[in-house]
């Protein structure tokens, strides 16, 4: 196989961090080459340098063994390099078609959509992608938005494709479709750089390059390695993929939800008649494809969204419609899914974020002033206890990698909650080391006697952790099942809208 | 008083604090009067002056103080409501003659003189002509802000019109801005739309009259140059008697040792003393029938001779 692209001695520094340190890397024609590494290891930075989006401080890029000068994405595109960025680079207010053609037309006054439509039809048919080109992107579920990103690249005739965590927002089914398509691309001679944290996906590639702290640790042929080895290379220690969950008898009911409904901005029903209950020492898993009401459910439970109907009994008290403040004061902890938007103030320091929401608490105040010593003390304690990788407690939270930012939220919520923790997608986008850590922490709280509501698109999370799994579809609960008695496939069917057996829950509730 | 016996002064240097800018009618007419005084050389004086940009409040006070402390100025002519500032200075500079002008001032006396300007007599004459010339029996007046020395003109204009033609209806508008020609234009056009066929224009925008091809009257300054085809006549302020009054007072103090005795009440020079005038636009004379012109001439000579007094009415002018 010939080399499609080679990177030699690439170094990229940001103010203060060396994100890539003398990286050597090569991509063969027609292969899927996985970049694997912890959060913050420098995977996205390396990709962006190849794509000409960042300018490396040192190093060379060779295409087909010829040194090339890639000064901007324009050059990269000209050389047939395309990139799907880790975070969507889409315009929600534009249609799919507009998102794809914006900036690609080089002549003429009028928008020439007809021609583009024709070409896109060809691409979609060729790969079996089904997407309404005239839908607004804001109307699409996140999973579908990823297809828009991929179409953008294909539309520009890329031969080398960089996919930065494309499956983070995809359901397992969608991920499978994506992999089928990626393999088709390889068969057509395209070469793929794939970034992912999911070992299942890594194991479907041809070769793997492991990055740690900006350096290449190893490049391995996939058949010659194992997930355990990769994880060890990545973190520098052994990682256990299944945490052990002790059997615990559920205690008294902490949270009982009955007939809960809620409406969206346009008055549409986003939650329909949701009922469940969680007890002490119990984790209720919420399964479902993102956008099926999980977010709204958590918002109602933590008080930021008003329910339209129904009751929420928390420790025997009706709390439906109470403010977030009231819920927090009653001991409800909330780990939101959008950590940098809802869970943290990125510009605030780690210390400031540790007391977010508790800034008026007398514990952290001295008279009318905030007690700096108490707050930094607490922050240091949390940094130690939760192993938050940061220079010190004064660093802005937004500067931390996703995993470490998530730890701040977990630390804060666990510290202040008593009784109930609501965790929505706590492991999304995290590397396996951190996932293991988050899972351990949740189990620790369970053992302490908390009730936990945990939503995750990773069914492995739920099967590892949950005592019961409620499956949501279009704002409704399709059924509540016992993970010990159902298979992943059965849950998958319910996630697609088939009503399932709720015997397990009934048994427990009546018990 | 001692110095004055040594030699009569031959120079008079005036510092002028402008309130709106040389391009405005209020300030521009003063400078014109000073120009004439310079040529006329009262008491053989070489009159020179320096003026500031528009200044208000304590900035004006600071400027006056700088002028006063420089020792170069004999008269500080603050051309609007500045008695609060003069109050803080006049005792410190007893030799300097301070002038404040127009409404809103306090008559302090001593070395503060209070020049007042009323142009209501010419406005009455314009109104009289308007009353005779109107066909719709409806007249308009557009002003900037209400004030004592604005209201008197508008009221006199309508009083004149009423005297000439009891059927006259009036419409009045204030734009609450010193400088907004577009807004002034809309108010004028609105008046024309309500049927006004002659406008007393106090905001200086004659375009609407040009477009509607109607006649209008200028205010405070001869404004026919702005719109030769519409400005039939203007009620003009003339500061010459005021300037010469002040020069005389200063002279009497400087040369004859007479103590300053500023007025504490409003003091204005009527039309007969040259404090104001009607300046018609000769090119539009054909619009005024001979009999109307004769009546106007008659009325004017009565006013000039003191046989007729135009009442001063400073109440809020309202549409009627």
């Amino acid at each position: 196989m010939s080399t499609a692209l080679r990177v030699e001695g690439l170094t990229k520094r940001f103010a203060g961090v060396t994100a890539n340190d003398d990286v050597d890397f090569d991509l063969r024609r027609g292969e899927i080459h996985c970049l694997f590494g912890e959060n913050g290891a420098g995977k996205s930075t390396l990709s962006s340098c190849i794509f000409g989006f960042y300018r490396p401080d040192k190093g060379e890029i060779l295409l087909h063994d010829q040194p090339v000068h890639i000064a901007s994405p324009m050059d990269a595109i000209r050389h047939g390099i395309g990139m799907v960025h880790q975070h969507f680079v889409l315009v929600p207010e534009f249609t799919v078609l507009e998102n794809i053609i914006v900036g690609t037309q080089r002549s003429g006054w009028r928008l020439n959509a007809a021609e583009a439509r024709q070409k896109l039809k060809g691409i979609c048919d060729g790969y079996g992608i089904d997407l309404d080109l005239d839908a607004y992107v804001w109307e699409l579920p996140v999973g579908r938005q990823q297809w828009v990103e991929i179409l953008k690249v294909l539309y520009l005739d890329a031969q080398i494709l960089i996919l930065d965590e494309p499956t983070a927002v995809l359901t397992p089914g969608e991920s499978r479709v994506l992999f089928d398509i990626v393999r088709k691309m390889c068969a057509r001679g395209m070469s793929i750089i794939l970034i992912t944290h999911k070992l299942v996906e890594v194991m479907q590639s041809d070769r793997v390059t492991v990055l740690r702290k900006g350096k290449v640790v190893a490049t391995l042929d996939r058949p010659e390695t194992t997930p355990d080895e990769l994880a060890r290379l990545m973190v520098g220690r052994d990682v256990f993929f299944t945490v052990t969950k002790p059997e615990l008898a559920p205690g008294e009911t902490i949270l009982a939800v009955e007939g809960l409904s809620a409406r969206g901005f346009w008055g549409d029903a986003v939650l329909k008649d949701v009922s469940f209950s969680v007890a002490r020492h119990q984790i209720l898993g919420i399964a479902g494809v993102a956008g099926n009401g999980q977010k709204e459910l958590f918002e109602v439970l933590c008080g930021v969204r008003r329910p339209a109907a129904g009751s929420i009994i928390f420790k025997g008290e009706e709390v439906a419609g109470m403010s977030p403040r009231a819920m927090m004061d009653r001991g409800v902890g909330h780990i939101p899914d959008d950590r940098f938007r809802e869970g943290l103030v990125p510009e605030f320091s780690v210390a400031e974020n540790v007391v977010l929401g508790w800034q008026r608490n007398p514990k952290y105040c001295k008279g009318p002033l905030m007690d700096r010593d108490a707050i930094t003390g607490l922050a240091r304690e949390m940094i130690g206890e939760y192993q938050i990788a940061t220079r010190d407690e004064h660093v802005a939270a937004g500067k931390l990698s996703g995993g470490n930012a998530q730890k701040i939220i977990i630390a804060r919520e666990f510290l202040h909650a008593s009784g109930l923790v609501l965790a929505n997608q706590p492991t999304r986008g995290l590397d396996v080391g951190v996932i293991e850590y988050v899972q351990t922490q949740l189990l620790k709280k369970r053992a302490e006697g908390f009730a936990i509501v945990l939503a995750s698109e990773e069914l492995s999370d739920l099967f590892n952790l949950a005592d019961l799994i409620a499956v949501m579809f279009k704002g409704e609960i399709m059924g509540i099942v016992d993970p010990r008695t159902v298979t992943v496939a059965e849950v998958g069917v319910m996630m697609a809208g088939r009503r399932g057996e709720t015997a397990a829950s009934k048994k427990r509730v009546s018990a | 008083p001692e110095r004055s016996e040594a030699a009569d002064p031959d120079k008079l240097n005036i510092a002028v604090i402008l309130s709106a800018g040389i391009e405005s009618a209020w300030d521009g007419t003063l400078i014109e009067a000073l120009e004439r005084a310079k040529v006329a050389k009262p008491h053989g004086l070489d009159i020179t002056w320096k003026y500031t940009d528009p200044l208000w409040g304590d900035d004006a006070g600071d400027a006056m103080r700088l002028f006063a402390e420089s020792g170069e100025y004999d008269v500080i002519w603050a051309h609007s409501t500045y008695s609060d500032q003069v109050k803080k200075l006049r005792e410190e500079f007893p030799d300097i003659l301070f002038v404040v002008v127009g409404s809103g001032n306090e008559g302090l006396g001593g070395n503060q003189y209070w020049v007042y300007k009323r142009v209501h007599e010419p406005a009455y004459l314009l109104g009289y002509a308007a009353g005779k010339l109107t066909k719709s029996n409806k007249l308009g007046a557009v002003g900037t802000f209400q004030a004592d020395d604005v209201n008197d003109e508008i009221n006199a204009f309508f009083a004149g019109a009423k005297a000439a033609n009891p059927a006259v209806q009036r419409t009045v508008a204030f734009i609450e801005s010193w400088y907004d020609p577009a807004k002034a234009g809309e108010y004028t056009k609105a008046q024309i739309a309500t049927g006004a066929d002659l406008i007393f224009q106090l905001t200086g925008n004659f375009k609407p009259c040009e477009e509607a091809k109607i006649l209008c009257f200028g205010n405070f300054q001869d404004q026919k140059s702005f719109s030769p085809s519409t400005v039939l006549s203007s009620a003009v302020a003339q500061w010459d008697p005021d300037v010469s009054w002040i020069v005389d007072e200063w002279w009497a103090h400087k040369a004859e040792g007479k103590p300053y005795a500023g007025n504490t009440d409003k003091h204005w020079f009527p039309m007969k003393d040259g404090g104001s005038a009607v300046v018609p636009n000769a090119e539009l004379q054909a619009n005024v029938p001979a009999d109307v012109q004769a009546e106007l001439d008659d009325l004017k000579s009565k006013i000039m001779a003191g046989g007729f007094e135009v009442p001063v009415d400073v109440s809020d002018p309202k549409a009627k």
Partner: protein
Amino acid sequence: MSQLFQEAIIISILASTIRIMTPLLFSAMGELITQRAGIWNMGVEGTMLTGAFAAYLVATATGSLWLAVLAAVVAGALMGIVIAFMTATLRVDHFIAGLGLNLLAGGLTLYWFQSYIQGRPQPIFSGFQDVAIPLLSDIPVIGPVLFSQRALTYVALLVVPVVWFLLYRSRYGLELRCLGENPKALDVKGLSVSARQYAAVMLGSAMTGLGGGFLMLGFSDRFLADFTAGRGWIVIVALIAGNWRPKGVLVAVTAFAFLESLATHLQVVGAQVPHQLLLALPYLASIGLLMGLRFRSGQPARLGIPYARE
């Protein structure tokens, strides 16, 4: 009051609405283009003032009104370069760049004006006259309201569909809106964000300057300090109230102009309330109208946020 309902007055109210709104419309459409490109230019007042002053200088110096129009456009575009340099190149806070421009323009125009007239009587010019469109202007009510206006009024009214077409139907418009919604989407395709922002701000500011120039050339014969008298703020208000859409902005500007025209006529027909209340009416009513309206914000997502790649 009943006078208000006479035909002549209704025509006058409507015609006045058109006159009040057209200069604002140029500027608002200019600011719309600027803001859709993600630049929150608070310097509308200063840009309009500079356009008006440039128009005045050229009109009095050359006597040519169309050269004066050109001058207003060029002056506006120059102000646009200043804003673009501050926001796109230096990535200074958009608000302060615009407010600074207002300060600068207010000071410089007055300084140059005072230096220009140097104490002599202020030169004046004779501005645009109404151009009645044959036949159309004879239609009752609509004719005098819409079809006997200044030539630039027709241009202003045409600008709305043109801007709409530019934004929604042209290739440039798609890229321009993309600047405001997510400039990174252009950047990752290798297109220069800042070059496009310069172009958009210059075009937008040129139109904003034209608004000031039209105010001067269409409705005045001279320059005065603070000539635009706060209209730039009304433009910004109209843009927000119009939810950043050409049609919306047109409606907002029209509504404001209509209220102002109505207040004008109320004072003139002698409504027995303090005239200050009538002058305040457009502002009071605007707030009232906006309290009743509620819509999903059309504010460009990245409006006012300086774009940096790293």
